């Protein structure tokens, strides 16, 4: 009969469903037998970890929302009520709050993996760009979530960040009023942020779906950054990578649990346990740690509009990264110059994070500017130049070749394969 799917499942019920809606075939194809490069290291865990993290955030968030009141007069107390009077409410909230931090840790490592192994290059440009969209949505969601407890940092953070839009010439102030739903951050703002904070994760889920679809079209990159040549280079996703991801997940959950149970407020700011007070500005307004590098870039520019543009530029530059990097070699393993520079970039971002946590005085201003300049220099000048100046190391013939030869068998080594031992788990 036309249109019906030919299912290979033996179980009659599964077969009946699969014939009409081939979900089981799809799962088996995409997560069962899906051919995956055999040489992943543990950096390749972090995509799966991010998915798990999103699921945790949605699961805890739904239950928090059942007990939260998005009203300026009640929000702070309703959060504390969750902490004190809702059964395991403290667990829900601490998991959710620290889950945001874990999400950014995981995603930043995931991005570093992409940068180091050149995962953004042909043919995965769109995959990478969708990833940058995911980052932006995550940031918006996290920012609005931080406003909800309506503490001092919630209120003043919201005020500072929304005010950034006032830097836009002519229409800036109108946009800010429109965002606030009034003439200051107030009840209307809190209400809409709650609504959007609940909506965005589902948008995020949709975009992540696209991210995975795009991934399964191109296939995964790998630590050698060379294409899969034959079936020998791959393994079925299950059980090899389901179990490898599970190892990573256990370690991730352990780190997560240590934060939640033993230091639940370590990454937060004490001031957010003071109820929001529009009449009293905290000595220092500091965003959550995962925004600090961007905050530092913002403050490194003495001009408001310039700072805002540069801050958004720091992310915009990632969008065009696939075209800024002119080197055809993906993995930094084979790029002797790119490799140290990516380390410098990491140092620069960490320095920016430190700068963002301190008042812009004295040495912090200088440090912030130096690191900001390097950040943009790295992407806009170095990457286009390096591809032309660098002499990459010889690439291995295939993914499976060095693996086999290392085992002691096989003929003479291809020159590239001998360059480095395999980075295996």
């Amino acid at each position, binding site marked *: 009969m036309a249109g019906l799917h030919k299912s290979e499942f033996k179980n009659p019920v599964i077969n009946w469903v699969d014939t009409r809606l081939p979900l089981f075939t799809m799962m088996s194809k995409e997560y069962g037998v899906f051919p995956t490069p*055999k040489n992943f290291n543990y950096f390749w865990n972090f995509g799966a970890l991010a998915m798990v993290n999103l699921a945790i955030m949605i699961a805890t968030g739904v239950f928090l929302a059942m007990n939260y009141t998005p009203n300026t007069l009640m929000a702070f*107390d309703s959060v*504390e*009520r969750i*902490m*004190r009077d809702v059964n395991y409410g*403290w*667990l829900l909230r*601490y998991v959710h709050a620290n889950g945001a931090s874990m999400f950014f840790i995981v995603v930043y490592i995931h991005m570093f993996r992409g940068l180091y192994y050149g995962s953004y290059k042909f043919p995965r440009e769109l995959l990478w760009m969708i990833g940058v969209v995911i980052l932006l949505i995550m940031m918006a969601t996290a920012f609005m979530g931080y406003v909800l407890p309506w503490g001092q940092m919630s209120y003043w953070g919201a005020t500072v960040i929304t005010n950034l839009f006032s830097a836009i010439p002519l229409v800036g102030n109108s946009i800010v009023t429109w965002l606030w739903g009034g003439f200051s951050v107030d009840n209307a703002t809190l209400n809409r942020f709650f609504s959007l904070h609940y909506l965005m994760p589902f948008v995020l889920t949709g975009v992540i779906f696209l991210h995975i679809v795009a991934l399964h079209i191109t296939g995964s990159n790998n630590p050698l950054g060379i294409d899969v040549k034959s079936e020998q280079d791959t*393994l079925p996703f299950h*059980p*090899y990578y389901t*179990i*490898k991801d*599970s*190892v990573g997940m*256990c*370690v991730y*959950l*352990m780190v997560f*649990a*240590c934060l*939640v*149970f*033993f230091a*639940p*407020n370590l990454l937060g700011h*004490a*001031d957010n*346990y*003071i109820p929001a007070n529009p009449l009293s500005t905290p*000595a220092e307004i500091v965003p959550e740690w995962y925004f600090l590098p961007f905050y530092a870039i913002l403050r490194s520019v003495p001009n408001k509009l310039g700072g805002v543009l540069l801050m958004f530029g720091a992310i915009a530059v990632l969008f065009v990264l696939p075209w800024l990097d002119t080197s055809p070699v993906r993995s930094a393993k084979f790029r002797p*110059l790119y490799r*140290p*520079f990516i380390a*410098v970039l990491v*140092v*620069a971002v*960490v*320095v920016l994070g*430190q*700068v963002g946590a*301190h008042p812009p005085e*004295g*040495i*912090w201003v200088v*440090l912030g500017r*130096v*690191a900001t300049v*390097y950040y943009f220099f790295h992407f806009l000048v170095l990457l286009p130049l*390096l591809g032309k*100046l*660098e002499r990459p190391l010889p690439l291995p013939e295939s993914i499976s070749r060095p*693996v086999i030869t290392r*085992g002691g068998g096989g003929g003479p080594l291809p020159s590239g394969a001998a360059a480095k031992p395999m980075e*295996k*788990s």
Partner: protein
Amino acid sequence: MNFNPKIILRALVGPLTVAGMLCGASLAAQAQEIELPHQSWSFGGLFGTFDRASAQRGFQIYNEVCSNCHSLKLAYYRNLEGIGLTEEQVKAIAATKTMPTIGDDGQPAERPATPADHFHLPFPNDKAARAANNGALPPDQSVIEKAREGGADYIYALLNGYGDPPPGMKIGDGLYYNKYFPGHQIAMPQPLQPDSVEYTDGTKATLEQEARDITTFLTYIANPEMEQRKAMGVKVVLFLAVMTGLTYAVKRKIWADVH
């Protein structure tokens, strides 16, 4: 082209390394500025629990001293069972307090509190609180341990931090010198002196003892879930440690023929 990337690299790494070191140095400098003496607390560490006797003495201090000005809005009298008081004791304590209510005649009235009530408020509103306190608002203490950098150590240090200002420092009208208060000028006069309370359990009420006890009590009030949280955490982490080991073993087995 006469281009040596190594020179560029050195030119970049050098300043950034220095930058990193400077970061560390100024962090250290800042830490010095607000250094709080670190105390050892019964509730500290992975297995810490609240010292019940100390927390109960702390409640006595709150009850007799702090509660004259500071509210504890988020706490209920029933929370006192968490520091080892019995249901009967809590009922008796609550019964000595009054709650505002509306009487049968529709007029504002008062009734005795029950364990299900929030703590009695010292002032009907913030304006009344300011009017009675020289314009300053005594902060609510329900989550004060979480709301101050340094937490318990800060509260303890602040209560012990009163004294004469260093020579040359001008103290504002109605303000007091405190070594650990940000800006060193605090609107609260020294709240605890030696023997501010007479402990019912006979403990000698030194200033240090009082500060330790009220800090323990306030830490409990800010984190009533702490003991349950840590106990659960130990179990969860142990479970995950075993789970990690098992999963890794299975992983090795599955991958054995691939390597």
